[in-house]
Every structure is written in C-alpha cells, then in structure tokens.
C-alpha cells in the first residue's frame, strides 16, 4: 500500500500553467520530499495528489488504481497542513477521532486507536482540551495524530514545521522521521527548507517553476547534482560558483565548489582573498571571503580557524570534488 504514480500530469490556473507535464513515481514506504523555492509548484503538486485540486490533464494512480477523478475523501490519504487545520470546536480527542467517525469504524476500535495514537504522540493528558488551549508543537502532534489513526495509504505533509520555532522544529523533524521508521508508510513531505529535505528524505524531488529538476537520494543530489540549480539549492552553506577564465582552466563554463571542499591557508593557494566576515561556531568556522574578480565566496572549515575581518587568506579547491557545468548550466560528467 502507498504506491503513487503521476503520469503526464499538468495543472493550469486560468492561462497560467503552474505544472507542465510531469511524471513521478513514489514507491511504497518511501519518504519523499518535494523541495524548491517558494512558488515552484511543490504545494500544488501535493494538493493534486491529495485531490484538493483537480489536475488539468494526466493521470494519478494510487496503488495501481486510477485516482484522478476520485474525491479527496476517498483516496485513502491523510494530510497534515501548515496551519494544522484542527477543528477548533472539537476537543483533541474528537479531532483525532473525526476521521474514524467518518469511516464509521466500530466505536471500541475507535477508542483503542485514539488511545494508541495519543500515547505515541504524548497527548494522553490533553485529550479533553480544545486546540486553542494547546501550544504550537502540541497542535502539530494532534494534526499528526489525526492523520495516523486512519492508517492511510500515504501521509502528505505540507510544510508542517514552518510555524514552529527552531528548537521545536528539530524535535518534530526527528519525531516525524521516527514515525516513518515505525509505520513504514509512504510519506510525501513538502518543504522549502533543504536541511529538512536532506535529513528526512529517502528521495528528494527538486522542483523549479513546476519542473522536476532532479530526483534522487539526498547524497546523490549532493554529490552529483544534474545542474547548477540543484547544485546551488542542495547543501548548506550554498555552493560557490565561478565563471570566466578560472572556470575555463577546468574546461567548463561555470565551476562549482562547495564551501566544505575549499582548502584554506594563510600562506599559499589558488585564489587570494580578504575575509569580510568570520563566523566561529566552535565545531565549524564559516568565512566569507572577497576574492579578486569573483563574488564573495563562502568557506567552511572544520573546527576552529583563527582569522578575522580584513585578514588575507588563500583558497584552493579540492579538484576531486569540483563540479563543472556547461553554458546551459548542465553538469559536465
């Protein structure tokens, strides 16, 4: 259960095509993350799978059956929304029970499932509260509880963590990953945060303007980005791009070097630059260096490296880990 195939689906709003013909296969049990800048169509794609938007053309099949015309209620998918979308007039318990009630499940079974979900999500003490009396993290847990009780074919998450503060976000990220390990159900997760994508996904789908730029495992995308866009989007801090004469030395229109693949020296190296900002995090040091003839470059050094604003440093790329791109921005193998 939980195999979803999209065949040549498109979506237009009026005259504007937001999803050009697109094919994608999501396998059973996979954790798939749709990632891309805002407006890239990732949420629209999720809503098409959910059935909350109708496709303009193409076919969506879920577990081998054509679900293109099936209303959302009958697709057997559960969704967690960015705003949590809890029913404000119902208690936590009623919120979680709602999908079971809609499925006309046996009341004893309803009780059992709600109790089990509440236990997993640490909500047992809050079952009689209203959503308005809960914190953001608790509300998110209720939304997840409402999704898991149904044992759906797949979970759809629409930027579920973006309303939470940074610390809570990391916690919830772990909880969702653990949940996936336990349930082994297909999960489709939409985010604009590439860190969430890298840490949670089995498979990342990078989208831009409705197009799939690349599909692959997090490390595949990190090591072998298909083009400049993916190279720049995946990885933090962002990859450095260099064009012109220095790129031509490597037989490319553009070369890309990740901040962690630059060697730093105070005495010698390929490029000479001046440190503008040095961020000392203890575990890492991030340097922003103004190299003559380029934009500012970012360098990541493991551990501590004592330089400060105004110091001169030399940078050398690790030739093994350098990415080369042609004029169209495509990777040169």
């Amino acid at each position, binding site marked *: 259960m939980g195999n979803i195939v999209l065949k040549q689906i498109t979506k237009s709003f009026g005259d504007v095509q937001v999803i050009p013909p697109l094919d994608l296969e999501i396998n059973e049990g996979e954790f798939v993350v749709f990632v891309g800048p805002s407006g890239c169509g990732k949420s629209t794609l999720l809503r098409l799978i959910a059935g909350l938007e109708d496709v303009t053309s193409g076919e969506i099949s879920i577990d081998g059956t054509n679900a293109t015309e099936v209303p959302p209620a009958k697709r057997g998918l559960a969704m967690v*929304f960015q705003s949590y979308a809890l029913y404000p*007039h119902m208690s936590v318990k009623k919120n979680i029970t709602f*999908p079971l009630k809609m499925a006309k499940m046996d009341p004893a079974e309803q009780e059992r499932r709600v109790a089990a979900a509440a236990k997993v999500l640490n909500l047992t003490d809050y079952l009689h509260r209203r959503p308005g009396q809960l914190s953001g993290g608790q509300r998110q847990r209720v939304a997840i509880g409402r999704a898991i009780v149904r044992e759906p074919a797949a979970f759809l998450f629409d930027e579920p963590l973006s309303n939470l503060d940074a610390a809570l976000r990391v916690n919830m990220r772990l909880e969702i990953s653990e949940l996936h390990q336990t349930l082994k159900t297909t999960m489709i997760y939409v985010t604009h945060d590439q860190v969430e994508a890298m840490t949670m996904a089995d498979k990342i789908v990078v989208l831009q303007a409705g197009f799939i730029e690349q599909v692959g495992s997090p490390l595949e995308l990190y090591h072998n980005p298909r083009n400049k866009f993916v190279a720049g989007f995946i990885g933090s801090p962002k990859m450095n791009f260099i064009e012109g004469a220095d790129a031509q030395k490597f037989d490319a229109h553009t070369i890309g070097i990740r901040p962690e693949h630059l060697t730093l020296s105070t005495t010698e190296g390929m490029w000479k630059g001046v440190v503008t900002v040095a961020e000392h995090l203890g575990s890492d040091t991030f340097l922003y260096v103004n190299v003559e003839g380029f934009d500012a470059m970012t360098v990541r050094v493991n551990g501590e490296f004592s330089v400060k604003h105004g110091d001169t440093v030399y940078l050398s790329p690790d030739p093994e880990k350098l990415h080369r791109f042609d004029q169209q921005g495509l990777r040169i193998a």
Partner: protein
Amino acid sequence: MARNVSNTRKALVTAVAWTIGILIFFPILWTILTSFKTEAEAIASPPSFLFFDWTVENYVEVNSRSNYPLHFMNSVIISIGSTLLGLLIAIPAAWSMAFVPAKRTKDILMWMLSTKMLPPVGVLIPIYLLFRDFGLLDTRIGLVVVLTLINLPIIVWMLYTYFKEIPGEILEAARMDGAGLWDEVVHVLTPMAIPGIASTLLLNVILSWNEAFWTLNLTAAKAAPLTAFIASYSSPEGLFYAKLSAASTLAIAPILILGWFSQKQLVRGLTFGAVK
C-alpha cells in the same frame, strides 16, 4: 494619582453613555408611559411624567377593538417564515461565494447590495399588480416571499462575511479526513458558523418584524401584522395618543424582549465585518 484620573474619566464616560442611552430609549419609555394615561392626560400640556392616574383602560379598549392575537401571530409567521426561507436560500449562496468564488462573485455581491438602495416605493406598483394577479394580496405567504426578497441581500452578505472568516484549510482537512460534502457542512462548517448564523437569524427576524412599508401596502385584514395594527390607531377622526401608545407598546414588546435576551449576538451581527 493616575488611578484617580482614570476613575473620573470612567465616571464621565459612564455618565455620557447613560445620557445617550436614555435619550435613545426615551421615546419608547414615553410611549409606554402614555399608554397608561387617559386620552386627556396624554395630550395635556405641560405633560405629566409619572404623576397621573395610571389606567389600563387603553389596553382593554385596544384588545376589544382589534384582534391583537391575530396580528401578533401574523407578525411571528411573517418574520420567522421570511428569515428561515431566506437562510435556506442564503446559506448555499453564501457558501459557494465564500468557498468556490467565480470571477464575478464580488460583482454579484455588490449588485445584490445595490438593490437595497432602490426606494421600495419605486417597485410598489409592479409588485402590487403581481400580487393582485397571483392572488397574493393580504396573504401571509405573499408577505413571507416579499420580505425574504427584501432581506436576502443582507442575509447573504452577513453569512458570506462569517463564512469568509472560516479558514478553507479546515474544510480541506475535513475532506482529507474522509468527510463528504454533507459531513463537512454538518460536522465542521455549521458548528463553526453557528454564532454567525444565529446573529443573522436574529437581525432578520427584527428587520422583518419592524418592516412597515410592504406589510402596510400589501395587507388589509387577514394577513395584517402588528405594523398594520398600530397604523389602524392613527385614524382620520383624530389621533388617540393613549390608545396608539398602547397598541405600539403591545407591538414592540415581543421584539424588545427578544432583543434584550440576544444582545450579545445582535452586537456581533450589527458590526459584522467591522471587527473580527
């Protein structure tokens, strides 16, 4: 010190509010007082405020001269009937406008509201002729229909505003949870919109109860509501203030009591859209 200033200010504001409140309520109070006077005292100059011979003879007279229960029932049927019929039409209309708007939804809403700007007397003759031809003159059904039409723009607008406040994601969540349209309406939207629906209902009962133009022009005896009952006491032979006041008091009492008990809902209804 600051506390004293704010207390003085509070007292002042309270006094002003009471003054305005009493000024607004005074005509109603005067009507009620006059209804307990004799006709002579009612037109006495200078008028006596509280010290007169209290009498209920006006009420007795009014009740013997006209059929108060009939008019009362007509008013109840017409106002509640037109409000319920209006809600029945307006809930689906407001629903579709709020959740599945089309390109011209805003224009339709404005157009609906613009019909309220038309002076009713402008369409009196066509409506009167239609009523005559369809045999609707002096019938409750006819009045229910006409008052529904008159108040429909307001009902649709109010419900539209309330529905707009309900986040679409919650309805989508219900759809994802397996709710069909019926379950979505009954278990999610309606409970969330109940305060809005209640204030719309109340306001429209009051508007229909007080409506005087159409009720006076389209009824004679059988279907005449309380507005016609009051009007029958301003006769050409001269005004009988005390009896007129007694009739008025009887006519406004039910709605005044209803309004008193539903103040909270009404305030929300009257300020719809203004505060969220």
